[in-house]
């Protein structure tokens, strides 16, 4: 497997740093050759920036990819938005020389050149393909006796034309990684539905965005799970902080704990919930946190 550089994006380091810490502990624990992608910026956010100006979107994305090219490392993302933006931009630039020329003209201003020599990965597909649920099962220190509602999020698997991850209607590779930790992935209605945050909807039309999040939370509550596990900090924010906003705006209370898979895996590998910031979420539940301890 090619060495990787860790791309943090915005929400993980600046809103949920526990996910950043958990990811680094997990990568170390699995013996993966990784380093920080120092000096990276916003990916930039696919829904908003891709909507505004294609060449700007591609140029900022290319700069982040070039930083990793300079170290001859693949880019490892921990966020569906960053993965979507960087992987789609990488794909466009590799296949459209005209666009690559325009982007390189701009990058020359900061003495950079995009070569298209590295790939963009997402922690979930990376762990699934490069490590595998079997190895993860053997690596962990303790089993987690939890019922989990899994949320893939959209841009991990879609658009599928630029991914190699199989079905988008009923994927299982993420479920397998969760079940490798001893947890049970519980099916629920509209499991593959969007959390409602993407495409600039959360930033400009909050109430609408929260209605979509609440539909998701209702279905999850009906399934009777211990927590939600996701692959993306924007979905994480929408489903965690979103519960506070839904209570304030619509008066409905859910109190469902939310974890990124990096946090769940770090805990199964023997780290405490506090070490990876589970207690720094907006929805916290002391009883649930106690159940996570080995």
């Amino acid at each position, binding site marked *: 497997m090619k060495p990787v550089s860790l791309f*943090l994006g*915005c929400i993980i*380091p*600046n*809103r949920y*740093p*526990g996910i950043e*810490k958990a990811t680094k502990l997990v990568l170390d624990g699995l013996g993966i050759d990784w380093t920080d*992608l*120092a*000096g*990276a*910026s*916003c990916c*930039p*956010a*696919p*829904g*908003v*920036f*891709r*909507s*505004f*100006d*294609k*060449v*700007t979107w591609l*140029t*900022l994305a290319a*700069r982040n990819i070039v930083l990793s090219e300079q170290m001859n490392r693949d880019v490892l993302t921990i966020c569906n938005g960053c993965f979507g933006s960087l992987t789609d931009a990488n794909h466009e630039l590799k296949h459209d020389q005209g666009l690559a020329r325009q982007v390189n003209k*701009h*990058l020359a*201003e*900061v003495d950079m050149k995009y070569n298209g020599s590295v790939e963009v990965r997402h922690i979930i597909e990376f762990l699934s393909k490069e490590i595998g649920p079997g190895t993860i099962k053997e690596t962990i220190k303790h089993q987690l006796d939890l019922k989990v509602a899994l949320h893939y999020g*959209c*841009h991990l698997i*879609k*658009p*599928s034309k630029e991914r190699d991850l199989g079905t*988008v209607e009923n994927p299982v590779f993420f479920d397998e990684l969760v079940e490798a930790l001893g947890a049970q992935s519980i099916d629920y209605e509209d499991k*593959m*539905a*969007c959390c*409602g*945050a*993407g*495409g*600039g*909807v959360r*930033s*400009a*039309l909050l109430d*609408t*965005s929260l*209605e*979509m999040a609440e*539909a998701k939370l209702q279905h999850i509550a009906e399934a009777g799970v211990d927590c939600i596990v996701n692959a993306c900090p924007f979905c994480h924010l929408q489903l965690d902080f979103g519960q506070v906003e839904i209570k304030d705006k619509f008066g409905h209370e859910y109190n469902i704990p939310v974890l990124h898979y990096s946090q769940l895996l770090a805990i199964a590998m023997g780290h405490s919930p506090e*070490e*990876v*910031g589970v207690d720094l979420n907006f929805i916290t539940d002391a009883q649930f946190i106690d159940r996570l301890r080995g």
Partner: protein
Amino acid sequence: MTKEPVKLLDDEGLTFLTCMQCGTCTGSCPSGRYTSLNTRRIVLSARRNKDVYHDKDLWMCTTCYQCQERCPRGINIVDGILALRTESVHMGLMLPDHRKVAGLVIEKGHAVPINDTNRDKRKKLGMDELPETVHKYPDALDQVKKLLIATGFVQLVKDTEGKEKEGGQ
């Protein structure tokens, strides 16, 4: 010069002309359950060269790609919506909250920059107060700023100021 939707989508290799109006897109849309967004209607309007650029529904799409994945004619619907949004923005239409997000990236290099609460959370976790991003490296932030000027993005955001009323948004 604003391009007509058919020409715009054609130039991007994203023609909507093969759409048979089956409605699979609308039926699959998570946003359409809660908003006025009707993807089938946007596709129809665009291929009839109607002015979809002022249609506020364009901005209700979460870009989840479910419509695009399920389209029986294989039309790249979301890519098309993104192209229509871009033309709309270049006409001077940008939602005020989106302009704020754009401003944050122009100023800080992050759409969601660090704040005091999260500096404290990082310290509590035994991490550096600032992440290994443009937040920690001023030279890297300067590169981002230069690029955003070079691509014309700073000017684009400036040009959209105060134009919401014209756009009926």
